[in-house]
C-alpha cells in the first residue's frame, strides 16, 4: 500500500471542499450550472468506479440506470396530478400528489438500487464481456421501454417538470441551490463510497477483481459481493439521474441515449479506475469537453463545427494515450520524482522505504 500521511489527506480534502464552496462566489450563472452537472456526473462516476474500478465489472449501461433514476424522480415529483397535466393518462396506483424534489433524490436512488440488485442477480453470473453486453442491452432497451409505458413516462414526447425553485423559502438563488444540492449529495455519497471501499466490503470487491478463485478460497462469495457492487453502483446512478432530471426539468427517452453510457465509462477510465479522487477529473471532462468541443477557442478550425463529437473523441484518445491509468495515475506518476526528493529531504530513507 502507498503510504499517505493522514494530515495531508485531510488538508487536500478540506481544500477541495473549500473550492467547491467557493466556486459559486466566482462563477457566473452558466458556469455554475456546469459545475452543478460536474457534481451530478461525479455521483454517477463514483458508482461506476465502485463497479468497474473496485470490482472489475464493466457496465455499458450506466446511462440507462441514470435514466431509471431520472424517470423514478420525474414520476414522483409530478405525481398523478402533474402527469395528467402533462397530457398523459396516468394509472391509478401512482401517488396523487407530487413530492418535493429534494425528498425524491434518495428515493430514486433506492428504487434504482433495487432494480440494479434484481438485474444483478442473474446478470452477474455472467463475466467480463458477457456482462458488459447484458448491461449494454439495458442501455439499448431503456428508451424503448420508456416509449412503451407512455402513460407513466410521457412516451417519446416526454414530460416537462416544473422549473426548479429553492425550497423551504431559503434565501438563495435557484442555480445556487441546485449547485449546493448536487454537491452536498456528492459529498455524502463520496463518504459512503470511501467507507465502503476502505472496509471489509471493499477488500472483498478488490479480491474478486484481482482473482475470483483466490477470493473464493478465502471465503468471499463472488455472487453476493458482485451483486452488492452492482446494487450500490446502480443506486449512485439513480441519485445522479434524479439530480440530472431536476436540473434539466424535462425527460424523454432521448435524454439518456446509449452514447451517455459509453461516455460515462470512458470518463471513468480517464479519471482513473480504482481511485475515488480521480473521479472528479472524469466528471470535469464529461461536462466540459463536449461543450468545449462545440466551439474550441484554441482549435478554431472549421472542421470542429462539423463534428463536435469527433473533436471529443480525439481529445479522449489523447488523454488515454498520455495517461493509460487515468488522470489520477498520471498525477501519481508525475509526482514521483518530487515525492522522492521531498521524502529524502524530509524524514530520511526510512519513510521512503515505507512509502514504496
Amino acid at each position, binding site marked *: 500500500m502507498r503510504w499517505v*500521511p493522514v494530515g495531508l489527506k485531510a488538508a487536500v480534502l478540506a481544500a477541495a471542499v473549500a*473550492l467547491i464552496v467557493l466556486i459559486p462566489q*466566482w462563477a457566473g450563472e452558466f458556469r455554475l450550472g456546469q459545475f452543478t452537472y460536474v457534481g451530478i456526473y461525479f455521483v454517477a462516476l463514483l458508482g461506476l468506479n465502485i463497479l468497474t474500478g473496485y470490482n472489475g465489472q464493466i457496465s455499458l449501461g450506466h446511462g440507462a440506470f441514470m435514466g431509471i433514476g431520472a424517470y423514478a424522480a420525474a414520476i414522483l415529483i409530478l405525481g398523478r396530478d402533474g402527469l395528467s397535466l402533462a397530457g398523459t393518462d396516468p394509472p391509478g396506483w401512482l401517488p396523487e400528489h407530487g413530492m418535493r424534489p429534494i425528498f425524491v433524490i434518495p428515493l430514486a436512488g433506492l428504487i434504482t438500487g433495487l432494480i440494479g440488485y434484481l438485474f444483478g442477480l442473474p446478470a452477474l453470473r455472467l463475466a467480463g464481456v458477457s456482462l458488459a453486453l447484458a448491461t449494454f442491452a439495458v442501455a439499448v432497451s431503456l428508451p*424503448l421501454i420508456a416509449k412503451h409505458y407512455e402513460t407513466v413516462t410521457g412516451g417519446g414526447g416526454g414530460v416537462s417538470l416544473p422549473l426548479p425553485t429553492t425550497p423551504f423559502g431559503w434565501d438563495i438563488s435557484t442555480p445556487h441551490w441546485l449547485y449546493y444540492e448536487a454537491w452536498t449529495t456528492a459529498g455524502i455519497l463520496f463518504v459512503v463510497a470511501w467507507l465502503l471501499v476502505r472496509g471489509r466490503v471493499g477488500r472483498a470487491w478488490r479480491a474478486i477483481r484481482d482473482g475470483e478463485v483466490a477470493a473464493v478460497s478465502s471465503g468471499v462469495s463472488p455472487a453476493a459481493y458482485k451483486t452488492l457492487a452492482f446494487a450500490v453502483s446502480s443506486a449512485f446512478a439513480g441519485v445522479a439521474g434524479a439530480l440530472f432530471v431536476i436540473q434539466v426539468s424535462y425527460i*424523454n427517452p432521448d435524454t439518456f441515449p446509449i452514447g451517455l453510457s459509453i461516455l460515462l465509462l470512458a470518463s471513468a477510465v480517464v479519471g482513473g479506475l480504482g481511485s475515488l479522487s480521480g473521479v472528479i477529473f472524469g466528471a470535469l471532462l464529461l461536462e466540459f469537453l463536449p*461543450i468545449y468541443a462545440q*466551439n474550441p477557442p484554441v482549435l478554431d478550425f472549421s472542421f470542429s463545427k462539423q463534428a463536435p463529437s469527433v473533436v471529443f473523441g480525439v481529445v479522449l484518445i489523447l488523454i488515454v494515450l498520455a495517461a493509460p491509468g487515468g488522470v489520477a495515475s498520471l498525477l*501519481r506518476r508525475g509526482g514521483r520524482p518530487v515525492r522522492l526528493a521531498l521524502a529524502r529531504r524530509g524524514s530520511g530513507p526510512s519513510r521512503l522505504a515505507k512509502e514504496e
Partner: protein
Amino acid sequence: MLKRFWMLAVLASIAAVASLSASAMTHVESATPGVTKGQIVIGGTFPLSGVASLYAPIPRGMEAYFKYINARKGKDGKRGVGGRQIVWKYYDDTYNPATAVQLHNKLVLEDKVFAVVGTLGTEDNQAVRPFLNQRKVPHILVSTGASFWGLQYKQFPWTIGWQPDYIAEGRTYGDWIARNAPNAKIAVFLQNDDYGKDYLRGVKIGLGAKKNLIVSEQTYELSDASYASQLARQKASGADTWVLLTTPTPTVRAIATAKALNWKPSTIVINSVSAIDNVMAAAVQRAGADFVNGAISTSYLKSVTDPKYANDAVVKQYRTLLARYGPQGADANNQFYYYGFAKAYDTVRLLTAAGKNPTRASLMRATQNMNWVNPYTLKGIKVKTSKSDRFPISQIRLIRFTNPNWTEFGNLFKGR
C-alpha cells in the same frame, strides 16, 4: 507526500476556474442582451451529428444567408440589419433534449443571445420552452411542425413556430380525399406518438363528415422489428388509399413491406416530413418507381430540384449565395439548405420589424404582425400572423411524385 500533488492539482483547477469566471464577469450587460451598436446576436441548437444529422444543413443555410445580409447593403444603405451585423451561434444538441437545455442555458446566460431562432425538434423545443419563457427570451420560428407552438401562446407568449403544422397538413389530405375520392377506402398508418396523432387529427378534420372513409388505422412503434402484421391487416381491409403519417426511415420500411406483401394501394399519401429526396430515392430503390409514382404530399417551399424552378430568380440566387457564403462543397440540391434560407429570410424581416432599437418585447410584437411574402415559399403563400393567429405559414399546396421529382398541383390550401 504524493498528496501534495493532489493539492497542486486542486490549486491549478482553482486558478483555471478563477480565470474562466473572471472572463465571464467582465462582460458588461447592455440594456437589451445581444444587441449592441454594431451587432445583434442570435442562436439556436440543431442536430449536427447523430441520428437526426440529416437536418444539419438547416443552420448552415441560415448562416450563409446571414453572411449575405451582413455583406450586402440594404434599402437603408446599411449592411446587416439596420447597420448591425448578425452574429449567428448554433450548437450541436445531437437531438438530445437534455443537451439542448444545457446549450440554451449557454446561449442565454453566456453568449447573451438576443433571441433563440429556429431550434430544431419537437422534444428539444418542448424542453427549452419553459426556461426561455421564464427568462422572457424570444423563442421564435422553431423548426418543428407540432401544432402547440401556435396554439399555446397564452401559456408561452415568447414562443412561436414557423412552418405549417401537422394538423394543418393532415387537414389538406383529408379535404383532398373527401373532395376527389368520395368513395375511397382509407388505410392510415401512423407513428404511435404525438406526431402521428396530430397528423391523424388533421386528416379527420379535413375529411369532416366523410370520416368513416377510414377503414383501417394501424400504428407502429419506432422499436417494431416488422410492420408486416399491421400492413397485412391494412391490405385485408380492402383499402385503396394509403395515408402514411410516418417519419423518414419507417416510411421506407412501410413501403418496402407493402411491396413485399404485394399490396399496391392506388393512392399513397406521404406526409411532408418524409417526402424528402433521400426517402423517396430509397423507396424507389426498394419498391420500384412504379410503386411510388403518383404519391401525394404537400409543400410550402419551392423545390430546388423541380425543373420548373431551374430558371426561377429566387432559386438561382439561392444557388449563387450558397456557393459564395455556404460551407465548402455544400450541395445546393439539398432542400434543407434552402429551408435554412427561407427561415433566415423571415428572421431578418422580423429583426428589421423589431425597430431601430430592437428589444425582446418589440421582436415578439413583430412576430404577431407578420404580413409579407417570403420569396422562398410557393407563389401565393403569405406569411401572416396576428394577435390571435400564431401560425406564420399556414398555406400549403399538394404535390405529386413522378420519379425523381415532385410537381405541384391544385390550389393553395389554407390549413388554419
